């Protein structure tokens, strides 16, 4: 289609008149203005050099951009500029916003045909902007890439204050600033603090009383050891870890496709934390558990499940362009590895060298090659453009196998029973249809042959008179049967879909063709550059990356590199996050990012002391946390004091404890614990797939794969810890709505630290949500049953809800409250009901207050 722009007439006419030799004039009058007008905006050293291409100098097009020289003089077919302006390939069409008029394309073609004469000799001397190159030696000077040291704890003036070397590092800095630490928190505050921090649950009233009465200094350690040994510890810390992984019970966000095996990874984590699995081993299992030796089916299964770390994130599986999809998956995995273990933002280096940190494209594609050697997704059979996340059968112990075979037989029997019922219904239906058919035919036969024999007429009711009662009954039953059979079909389909199968897990395994991969130019899998050897971040390496045995992905070598004592990042990043969970802020406050634009550690020596100590103590998280919570610093009051506010308002020197708002999970779990309704769980699927109303699209093939909607929860889920509830990607379910109000992390990225926002929707939740309301009812019921005396009951309530004794002011306020609301409540009602209503209101007040949702 030719369109005539005003400029066309001007340009076109002289073109014909130009003599073949007037190349320079041609360039100056036609080509140069055209390039300036159409191309310089994005392709000039003055403005931008998109795709690395500059067209404002001869050297610019000679060197070309990402795709090589832009013009091959005299060769139209090989000149990328011509290919682009011809708009033949939609992915390689320029200018991007609209096609050039045909006459302008003709000018460029003519120019190339003439050998691309270019008068811009002056400009050829102009050097291209010096390309920033990553200087590894220079990069290693940055604090985070320096080897971890083991600094001696400094001496302090007040030698009686420290209980642990940690305290000496902190106090030394405070003393230098003329700052005194706050006083100690009282015992009630401390036991609530440590209980919430280590287990995500408040202490029980009995635990509070016992600890308050035990005046020995050993009492603290006794509490800590009890908490670390409690299964609730793993449930708490596994959730922290899940925040780094993008964990959900859904795959991607398209069409609610469920991640049926994800829960196994969640259970693996709970177990790993409770067993205090050495952290270096924990890292290795999550990256390469499938490649590690094992001595039992359980261990093998557990190690396979561990690699779910790389699979449980937000992976889009419905892109019709599979090369692009695979690239996106690898990127998700690399971002996760970088953020979780190294505190680095790897994603930036997918398209270009990192702008701030010494991470080059080669580093990214070196690691990407390792992951690409273990493909995490594959084509889903029977479902159009959908892929699926790789799942692997898990080895079973003989006992597990027997149990499963028994379950399979039971299930098969159940399906057979359903089918028998279906057959019965179908049989009945058939006979009714046949009967109705006969009636129908007879009825039709009658008017068609009005002079038929009287015998037939007597047997068949005339259509003009009312249908026989028999026909009515049959018709009704037939309609019923249609519904029943449909329902039965759904039940059979559901039962067959979820029939007991060999256990599987989302897990990694090396692919068939492991190997190095090329750099994808600007992340585009269709534009490849040099192949780079597989490896790890060079700036954080102390040696050459170990050789990868032939036929292997290199994940094991990468895992060993990350979990190595000489890795400058892993231990630092890990201990800093653990510190942050207890003290509210990290020593490096940007907990997921240790790079140039992140924050510097407030106490670099303390950070190194902690990292060294952690590794030297066998990478034991329990022993590490034990040291932290028994320090004097952890015992400090969270109250402000004037001197501290003046000298260090942000509390960088840790002169007091930071107050923390509880996370969504801790609020819900605490409500359940305080109301006495919390039930113990040993894991298992969060998705309620056994209910037919939750699963849809179960046919064996279709356009979209089976999907999940959490319409109906298991009754027990109301009382289980929040970590066991399914995590949806497209917004929370009714069962755990609290997550959406209290800063749950979107299950997609690496989030080592939760936000603590304040929103009126949270207040509405606390005021009116039935979760709080029901807990208040249960709590009041138990208090009334246990304590006759109102005063004793108040004391019990305060100890249970807030873990501290009621103050005299509070006693007055509470008594007044109970008195004042009595006449406002509906009457008449039984005295017991009135009492329950009054106390529910009071309990609700305590559970909705700041003393409950903050820890001091």
């Amino acid at each position, binding site marked *: 289609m030719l369109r005539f722009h005003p400029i066309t007439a001007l340009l076109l006419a002289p073109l014909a008149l130009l003599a073949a030799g007037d190349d320079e004039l041609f360039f100056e009058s036609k080509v140069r203005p055209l390039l300036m007008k159409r191309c310089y905006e994005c392709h000039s050293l003055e403005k931008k050099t998109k795709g690395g291409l500059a067209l404002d100098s001869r050297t610019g097009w000679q060197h070309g951009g990402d795709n090589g020289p832009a013009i091959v003089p005299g060769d139209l077919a090989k000149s990328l500029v011509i290919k682009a302006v011809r708009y033949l390939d939609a992915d390689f069409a320029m200018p991007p916003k609209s096609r050039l008029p045909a006459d302008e394309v003709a000018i460029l073609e003519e120019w190339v045909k003439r050998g691309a004469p270019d008068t811009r000799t002056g400009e050829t001397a102009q050097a291209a902007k010096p390309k920033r190159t990553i200087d590894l030696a220079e990069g290693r000077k940055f604090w985070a890439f320096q080897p971890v040291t083991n600094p001696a704890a400094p001496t302090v003036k007040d030698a009686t204050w420290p209980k642990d070397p940690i305290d000496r590092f902190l106090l030394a800095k405070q003393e230098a600033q003329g700052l005194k630490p706050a006083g100690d928190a009282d015992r009630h505050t401390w036991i609530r603090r440590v209980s919430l921090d280590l287990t995500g649950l408040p202490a029980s009233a009995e635990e509070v009383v016992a600890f308050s009465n035990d005046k020995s200094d050993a009492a603290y350690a006794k509490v800590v050891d009890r908490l670390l040994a409690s299964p609730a510890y793993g449930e708490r810390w596994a959730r922290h870890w899940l925040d780094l992984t993008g964990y959900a019970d859904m795959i991607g966000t398209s069409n609610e496709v469920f991640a049926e095996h994800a829960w196994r990874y969640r259970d693996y984590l709970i177990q790993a934390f409770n067993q205090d699995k050495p952290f270096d081993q924990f890292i290795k299992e999550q990256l390469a558990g499938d490649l590690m030796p094992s001595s039992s089916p359980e261990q093998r299964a557990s190690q396979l499940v561990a690699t779910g770390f790389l699979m449980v994130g937000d992976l889009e599986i419905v892109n019709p362009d599979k090369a692009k999809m695979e690239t*996106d998956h690898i*990127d998700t995995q690399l971002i996760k590895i970088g953020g979780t273990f190294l505190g680095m933002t790897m994603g930036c280096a997918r398209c270009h060298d990192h702008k701030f940190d010494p991470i080059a494209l080669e580093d990214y594609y070196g690691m990407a090659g390792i992951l690409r050697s273990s493909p995490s997704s594959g084509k889903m059979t029977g479902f159009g453009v959908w892929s699926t996340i790789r799942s692997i059968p898990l080895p079973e112990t003989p006992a597990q196998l027997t149990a499963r075979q028994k379950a399979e037989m039971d299930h098969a029997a159940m399906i057979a029973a359903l089918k028998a019922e279906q057959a019965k219904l179908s049989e009945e239906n058939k006979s009714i249809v046949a009967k109705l058919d006969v009636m129908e035919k007879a009825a039709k036969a009658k008017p068609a042959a009005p002079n038929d024999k009287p015998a037939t007429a007597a047997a068949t009711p005339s259509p003009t008179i009312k249908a026989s009662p028999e026909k009515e009954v049959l018709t009704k039953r037939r309609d019923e049967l249609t519904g029943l059979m449909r329902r039965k079909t759904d039940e059979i389909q559901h039962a067959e879909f979820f029939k007991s199968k060999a256990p599987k897990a989302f897990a990694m395994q090396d692919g068939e063709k492991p190997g190095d991969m090329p750099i994808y130019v600007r992340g585009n899998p269709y534009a490849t550059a040099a192949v780079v050897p597989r490896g790890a971040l060079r700036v954080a390496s102390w040696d050459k990356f170990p050789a990868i045995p032939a036929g292997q992905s290199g994940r094991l070598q990468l895992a060993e590199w990350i979990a190595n004592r000489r890795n400058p990042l892993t231990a630092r990043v890990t201990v800093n996050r653990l510190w942050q969970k207890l003290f509210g802020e990290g020593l490096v406050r940007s907990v997921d990012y240790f790079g140039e634009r992140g924050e510097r550690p407030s106490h670099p020596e303390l950070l190194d002391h902690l990292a060294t100590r952690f590794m030297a103590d066998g990478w034991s998280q329990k022993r590490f946390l034990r040291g932290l919570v028994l320090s004097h610093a952890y015992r400090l009051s969270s109250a402000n004091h004037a001197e501290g506010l003046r000298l260090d*308002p942000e509390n960088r020197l840790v002169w007091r404890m930071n107050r923390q708002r509880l996370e969504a999970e801790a609020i819900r779990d605490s409500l359940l614990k305080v109301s006495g309704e919390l039930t113990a769980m040993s894991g298992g699927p969060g998705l309620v797939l056994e209910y037919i109303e939750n699963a849809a699209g179960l046919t064996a093939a279709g356009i979209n794969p089976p999907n999940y909607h959490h319409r109906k929860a298991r009754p027990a889920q109301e009382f289980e810890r929040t970590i066991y509830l399914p995590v949806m990607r497209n917004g929370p379910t009714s069962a755990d709505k609290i997550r959406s109000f209290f800063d749950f992390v*979107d299950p997609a990225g690496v989030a080592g630290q939760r936000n603590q926002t304040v929103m009126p929707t949270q*207040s509405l939740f606390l005021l009116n949500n039935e979760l709080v309301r029901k807990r208040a009812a249960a709590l009041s019921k138990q208090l009334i049953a246990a304590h006759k005396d109102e005063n004793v009951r108040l004391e019990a309530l305060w100890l249970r809800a807030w873990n501290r004794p009621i103050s005299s002011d509070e006693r007055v306020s509470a008594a007044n409250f109970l008195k004042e609301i009595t006449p406002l409540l509906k009457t008449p009602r039984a005295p017991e009901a009135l009492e329950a209503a009054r106390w529910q209101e009071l309990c609700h007040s305590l559970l909705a207050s700041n003393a409950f949702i903050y820890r001091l």
Partner: protein
Amino acid sequence: MLPPISRRQMLQRTACGFGALAFHNLLQAAGTPTSPYANGAAPTAKRVIFLFMQGGPSQIDLFDPKTFINDRHGKSIDSPLRKEVTQVGTDKFLALGTQAPVRPRGKSGMMISDLLPHLATVADDICLLRGMNADNPQHAGATQQFHTGTFTEVRPSMGSWISYGLGTENQNLPSFVTIHPQGIRTYDNSFLPAAHQGTSLTVPASAQSLPIENLGNVSENEAIQRKRLDLIQRMNRQLKSDVLGDESMEGMIKSMELAFRMQTTTPAIVDLSKESKATLDLYGVGGKDTDKFGRACLLARKLSESGVRFVQVSIGGWDHHGDIRGNLPKLCAQTDQPVAALIKDLKSRGLLEDTLVLWSGEFGRTPWSQDLSGKSPIDKHGREHQPESFCSWMAGGGIKGGLTYGESDEIGYRTVDGKVHVHDLHATILHLLGVDHLKLTARHLGRDYRLTDVYGDVVKEILA
């Protein structure tokens, strides 16, 4: 005595409620010469209403008819697809003509389908973008990109960015409200403070149902709830003074009062019963097809008028893979009158000049047919997703009315002129609001993020 808190903490971790937006606003309200985000031009729009047509409305049927395709209805055409790309049920590449006549409308002669007769009456107020481009061919990814600029990681949505950049005009209302949202990522604040998350709202179907969760008092009466709140607040204030001040706890105390008031103020705002009959009729409230979306659009106008910076109204159902002939008219019937009513209503109230209205799906649909069963006659076929070239429109807020901008190729698969990528659309929306998309940034993990990522050009040609 309150401890001072750093701006970093204020903005990133402990932003407090709608009220805090006022403070935030003072810090960095755009559209003022001192705003760090200002683009230097006078803003022409103060607020945005985004009508999100989730599923992918068919641009070829509604706005961009193709003679080439109509002439070959039911016949095979050449596939323009890259060979690695699979589409199901499109292997024959049958041209599928438009479902209803598309004609020139208004003084401008803008092409609009007979399926949208009401929109046709406001053709001269809208600017039709016929060269829209996006990068992801699936709903989730494309919806995410349309709202956040990207689909490879979770980032703040457009409404959150605009709330963050411009703050609120009404401290008792959230600055970003989303009516019947389609997925959390369409209103996620991501790494921006939570005050910029879209507040999800349901248009009450009856006087008993609530527009926001947990709005209904669970005590037996309001007096008891007030007593309960008073007790909570007394204990909260005591705790705050025990620790000698705490910004977050103070925020919670204020937020409790606001929440209590919201129980009465919010239903009043969403109450449509006080609207005149003429207004209700204009939007089709009470109409068989138009009632639900009519209520949503009318509510959007009310919220916008009350100072909500960014209102989004979403409706799904545009994903016509099959029987587009039967299904497309249904969606048009539900939405056409309410959408046109919104333009007319805003205009008659003098609000259209500084309110930007955006209508768009996450992508469009192919000019060739799709037949998932492989057995249906051509009249029962649908169309596959098409992010390569589709149509959106904008109106008001400094947009050139009556302009048709952009052109697709002969078959309507690729844009050949006036390409507007989603990034360009974002840049342009911010520009109209007086914000430079290059300057509106938020630091996260060491990097300064933008709604437009590293892309985006303001489409100057469509500015009035």
